[in-house]
């Protein structure tokens, strides 16, 4: 087609270069400014993009901080398997801390056995921060995901309870990052703040980043519930009267099984997902998360409680 060069130019990589450069700059700043940083690594697409940038920032096999995963025990095995093999390939130290251990310790109590453990990750995360005395936790949150995240700084100061104080955020001027801490405090750092879901997929496509298979179209048993496609698993069985059907789906976001839903899709490659994302008219969270809809301010509230 004649207009191909035009289209390629429009989907050019130059803005990805700028985003990549900013992310690498931030990762190096963390490595230089903090004593005990760690990178939150779930095996999901955003953390894999960060890991790719970290490889470029520091050189292969030289990432100067450990990877940390807070495991709810309700993760898709495809993702945890992928996480383990990726960490091994990189020669990176992988620390896993489990919400179930917090439950055994009594620091996490569920209201009922079927409750999502997603919100309780904050407790286990803060326990890990205490245990390893981490002073900076690098996370793959993006500002386009959610309104509370749109307000958060790239270097986000947290008090000794891990709390975010939206009214007392440190002004972030130019690229001068005030990384000074009092004992017990830490920072959450978001190097891909300025990326959108589309940017992430374009980058995955451009860099040939491998992802867990769940991100691509596959057959899955689901039930339709309140406009969402709920995966039928041991943890999330069909309810009485619900019809279980098999559908071709993929996950736009991969998190705790009890609150993550796939979307209708036949996209089998990153390029096809780029195209689908261009045409999407529902947000990543809107299409996929069961736990964000309870209230408008649910993410803000969770962040104030120490959530990522």
């Amino acid at each position, binding site marked *: 087609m004649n*207009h*191909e060069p035009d*289209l*390629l130019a*429009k*989907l*050019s990589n*130059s*803005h990805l270069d*700028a985003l*990549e*450069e900013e992310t*690498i*700059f931030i990762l*190096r*700043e963390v*490595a*230089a400014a903090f004593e005990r940083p760690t990178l939150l690594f779930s095996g999901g697409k955003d953390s894999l993009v960060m890991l790719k940038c970290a490889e*470029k920032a520091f*050189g292969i096999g030289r990432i100067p901080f450990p990877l940390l995963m807070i495991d709810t025990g309700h993760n898709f095995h495809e993702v945890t398997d992928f996480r383990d093999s990726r960490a091994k390939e990189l020669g990176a130290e992988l620390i896993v801390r489990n919400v179930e251990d917090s439950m055994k310790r009594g620091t996490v109590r569920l209201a009922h056995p079927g409750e999502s453990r997603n919100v309780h990750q904050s407790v286990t995360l803060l326990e890990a921060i205490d245990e390893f005395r981490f002073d900076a936790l690098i996370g793959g949150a993006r*500002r386009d995901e*959610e*309104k*509370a995240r*749109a*307000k958060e700084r790239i270097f986000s100061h947290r008090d000794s309870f891990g709390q975010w104080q*939206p*009214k007392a955020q*440190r*002004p*972030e*001027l*130019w*690229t*001068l990052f*005030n990384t*000074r*801490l*009092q004992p017990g405090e830490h920072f959450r750092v978001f190097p891909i*703040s*300025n990326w959108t879901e*589309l*940017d992430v997929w*374009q980058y995955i*496509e451009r860099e040939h980043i491998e992802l867990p298979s769940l991100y691509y179209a596959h057959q899955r048993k689901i039930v339709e519930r309140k406009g969402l496609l709920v995966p039928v698993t041991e943890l999330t069985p069909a309810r009485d009267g619900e019809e279980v059907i098999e559908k071709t789906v993929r996950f736009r976001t991969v998190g705790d099984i009890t609150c993550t839903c796939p979307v209708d899709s036949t996209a089998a490659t990153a*390029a*096809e997902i*780029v*195209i689908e*994302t*261009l*045409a*999407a*008219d*529902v*947000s990543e969270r*809107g*299409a996929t998360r069961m736990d964000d809809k309870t209230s*408008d301010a649910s993410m*803000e509230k969770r962040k104030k409680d120490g959530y990522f």
Partner: protein
Amino acid sequence: MTTMDLIAASADTASANGQNDLRSALKFITCGSVDDGKSTLIGRLLVDSKAVLVDHLAGVQRAGETDLALLTDGLSAEREQGITIDVAYRYFATEHRKFIIGDAPGHEQYTRNMVTAASSADAAVVLVDATKLDWQNPDMELLQQTRRHSLLVNLLRVPSIVFAVNKLDAVEDATLAFQNISGALAKFAEAAKIPVRATVPVSALKGFNVVDGKPGWCGYEGLSLLDLLETLPGTPAETAEAFSFPVQWVEKFSSSSDTSQGRRVFWGRVATGNVQPGQTVTVLPSGQTAVVAQVLDHIRQPKAIPAGHSAGIVLDREVDVSRGDWLLAPDTFTPSREVAVTMAWMDDEPLVAGRVYWALQGHRWVKAKVRRIVHKLDVNTLAEEDASELPPNAIGHVELSFQEPLVTLPYLRSRILGSLVLVDTASHKTSGAALVL
């Protein structure tokens, strides 16, 4: 299907969706008083350029009406109070360009957040509420916040400033109102030496001239706000100055094939000028001199690097360089312990002469003492007033002395060498933003 086919097949959907990306993103901020309709304007930009997803739009429907402001005011305290507290960053793209919006608060008490958003912006849209002005009168007074925000964004050297006169749908004679208001804005801008790119009449509520043009409305035949934003330049890199480079991170190799003789690589972002192999540099503070042996770009490809981009520099000999040091073109910069600055004060505790703070410039932390408050600026006029302290959100001229010499340039010449922040040694709060005079 190949990737190419897919891209081609998606073109129509993509442009209909307004999500195509392009070259460089434009970072712009919106500023104006409370209730001038900033959040509504941003909501309108997002909705009319089809950047809002249906679930987000559903979240802002109240009793059948769409409240565009709720798209950006995301914190519960903001929803309670109906105001914007902190900068929200929003992303959208048209066929021609990708945009990052910094939605800065209008309240005077949140000036620090506005300064934060402005420090990295390529453009500022200053919103003017026509209904709050005595628009029949060509000699009307502009609102304090209009003057204040314009002066602030100009002080911070935001490259493009645009006035958007809003709510013209709500006045009796929109044409006369726009004529008088744009006249008053032009007079003010000229007196304050603020270069203005354009003054656009808009109705954020009705969508006039925000995304879709309304030719002839208010006697205006120019571009809609979005069309105008698509044409604005990014922030020019400071390549005309001599080379300067703050060292961000030192990478050590015991032995390595990708650097010559396994020397250290100094990573950072080129502040001014360019760097290429063969040029001589002086290290501050050690004063030693070396020659650049190799330059790597941010992903370790050998390349000459201009201002604004990350670089890894390998020198031809072992010299003492740590994070926070500077590599400089020799004989061009004079480090100094004393500097006069324009200070935007952000702390709840006032700035008092005699106090010692931490100062961060580039990647270097030094102690800084406030020697003298020269004067406070009236933020509405920039007139100079005597003052013994700078209260929160005040701006003034201040003399600082540093524990060790720093290399600075006036902020007008370099945003990086000319900017620093003061951090309170007790609370660790970011207390002041300083622009070198």
